């Protein structure tokens, strides 16, 4: 049976019709057409589906949509303000932090989550914060550089 489930996405209220165990990831991509959030492993290992739930970094593939009733979701699409990219997104562009791009939205969300708590992270702290995000192209160095240079351009 499908239910009406209301919550907030990127500052706007939404109501979707979904089965209670449908994954938040699928609802975002298929019902709300927010395809910036990617599916990698589907088991919480790769971080490609990372979004914020009430301000905390989570894997949207592990969240049944009925658990986000009346709560606030922020996706990669909601990061840019008034048409301008978020400083972390700009830094990824400028410093080659993305190659194929599948891991990038999750990497950016994890990096933003770190920088909200720690304005001036060390390299090790960056590595720790991104440990749940896998990239098969870059070898990570340009990603770490991008995060570092987002705060110290």
């Amino acid at each position, binding site marked *: *049976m499908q239910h009406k489930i209301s919550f907030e996405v990127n500052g706007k209220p939404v109501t979707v019709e979904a*089965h*209670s*165990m*449908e*994954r938040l990831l699928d609802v975002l991509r298929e019902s709300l057409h927010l395809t910036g959030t990617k599916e990698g492993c*589907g*088991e*919480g*290992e790769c*971080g490609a589906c*990372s979004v914020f*739930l009430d301000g*905390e*970094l*989570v*894997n949207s*593939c*592990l*969240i*049944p949509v*009925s*658990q986000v*009733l009346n709560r606030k979701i922020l996706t990669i699409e909601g990061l840019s303000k008034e048409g301008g990219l978020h400083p972390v997104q700009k830094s990824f562009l400028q410093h080659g932090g993305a190659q194929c791009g599948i891991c990038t939205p999750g990497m950016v969300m*994890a990096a933003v*989550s770190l920088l909200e708590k720690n304005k001036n992270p060390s390299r090790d702290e960056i590595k*720790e*914060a991104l*440990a*749940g*995000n896998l990239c098969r192209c870059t070898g990570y160095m340009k990603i770490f550089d991008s995060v570092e240079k987002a705060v110290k351009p």
Partner: protein
Amino acid sequence: MRAFVPDYELVTKGSLQETLKTLSQEPKIWKVFAGGTDLMVLFEAGKLKHHRFLNLAPFSELRKIQVEKDFVQIGSLCTYSDIQSHPVIQNEFPLLVRSGWVTGAKAIQNRGTIGGNIANASPAADTPPSLLAYGAQIELQSEKGSRILDYTQFHLEYKKTALLENEIISSVRIPRNQGWTHHYYRKVGTRAFQSISKVALSVAARVEADQVLNFHLGLASVAPFPMLALDLEKNILHQKLRLVDSEKVSQSFSNLLSPIDDVRSTAAYRKAVAKNLVAHLIEILGKPPGIYLES
């Protein structure tokens, strides 16, 4: 193959009491669902056998950390992140903070709960060895009321626990003021994060004047369920450390383990590593009081 989503149901009741009532009235039909970091993995893989779940997540009364005079009570819905950021837990129970820190990575730690980690009853789970090391108790709640159990009595066999069908885990209690002088945690996995242990040890000890006055070693991944190394405890307790035959004690510890061969490691490797870790631990116990965390 992926699960067929319409076959599953996750229901949120109006209150915790109502949830417990439903669990009591229809115990075979319902199971509870917390952070979902284990259940959703099975669901996605098409391996989640149970189909109807009661949602615990909205009940904030289960997500409190209360500091009492003699114990710290951690609500079962507290996440690994909640535990890591609590100042009293940081001060007094560094093993628990560490085991939360090595569980998955940040996004998992923000979502996975301590109650779920216990109830899932994986022999490789990260927090149970630390709960065992600190002598935790576990509170089980049903519609009728609650009961307290020593955590050592909770795991019965592989994936089999003392939790009744009409009960939930409501909190864990960790005794304070036990005079622990040495805290030792070691997880051996393929990498620091997002890795399931091949072997993990969590040890709380009280050592004074070279003598071991209190000692608990919690184990993961070398037995069918999380357990204390009681035999080792017997061999070390009340001994003068300098007289302990490290080679003999660590070998006899290793001989009693029952690890398995699986995708993550071999039984032989696990036994050898566990032996080496205990030899290292005995060395550490001879050092000044402190927190010895390695991974």
